[in-house]
């Protein structure tokens, strides 16, 4: 799993946020479009793409996309 691909998959859960706003260091909760439904979609995307089950607490523990990537990587 590469972080570039993870960022692309993460970004594809959003409709209106420009791709250039999604970087490893992006604090995703600060994005205007962030919502509880997008949080659920990220969990479902990680399940579908990486066969990793994220818990609500895993999402809570991550502030940046890279931190979430590392959590997913640790569960592979």
């Amino acid at each position, binding site marked *: 799993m590469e972080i570039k691909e993870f960022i692309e998959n993460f970004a594809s859960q959003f409709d209106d946020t420009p791709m250039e706003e999604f970087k490893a260091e992006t604090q995703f909760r600060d994005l205007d479009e962030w919502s*509880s*439904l997008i949080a*659920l*979609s990220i*969990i*479902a*995307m990680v*399940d*579908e793409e990486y066969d990793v089950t994220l*818990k*609500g*607490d895993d*999402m*809570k523990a991550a502030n940046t996309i890279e931190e979430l990537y590392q959590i997913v990587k640790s569960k592979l």
Partner: protein
Amino acid sequence: MLENQHLNHLSYAIDLCDEAAISTMVKDIPVINGCSNNAGITKLTPIQFITPEEIERIHKVNLVAPMMLTKHLVKCKKLAKPSSIVFTASAGGVFVASLGNAVYATSKCGIDGYMRTVALELAPKGIRCNSVNPGMVETPLINRGQVSAEQHEKDKENYPLGRYGKPEDVAFATIYLLSDASSWMTGTALKIDGGLTLK
């Protein structure tokens, strides 16, 4: 597990997704006065991630199993006249929509439609059929980690009575619907939701 032998209770552990096992159990039991269909599973899945496998997994337990159990009870004439069937449906889907809940909601709306049809078909036999429709209840079903404890606490603010349900809140309503205290009720979806759907 019912172990009071003086009351001649029987217990069976079967896979509700196995229709042959349901059929075998139903043939084995005596005529009964009530049936509570309570098994259920869920997983929050936004629409773009729904798969046929996930629909099948959840609907098999939540919808097909109670349909088949009821079918075999009726076919084998194992329901007394009068008797009462209770389905555990949900406020979710039937009375309120929530994010990521589409597969579970469709299974419970299916139960709602089935419950009303069974109520109509079996009324001439004196067999009543109703459902309990709970909001969020403190059971392992809602504590699988998909939603954090913090998010659950926030969600409780949507409940005018200030808390999620307890299993006994639903159990007492089920007992009521099984008992003669509800003998003129059939085809009713009974909301037990701490006021959630008042808003």
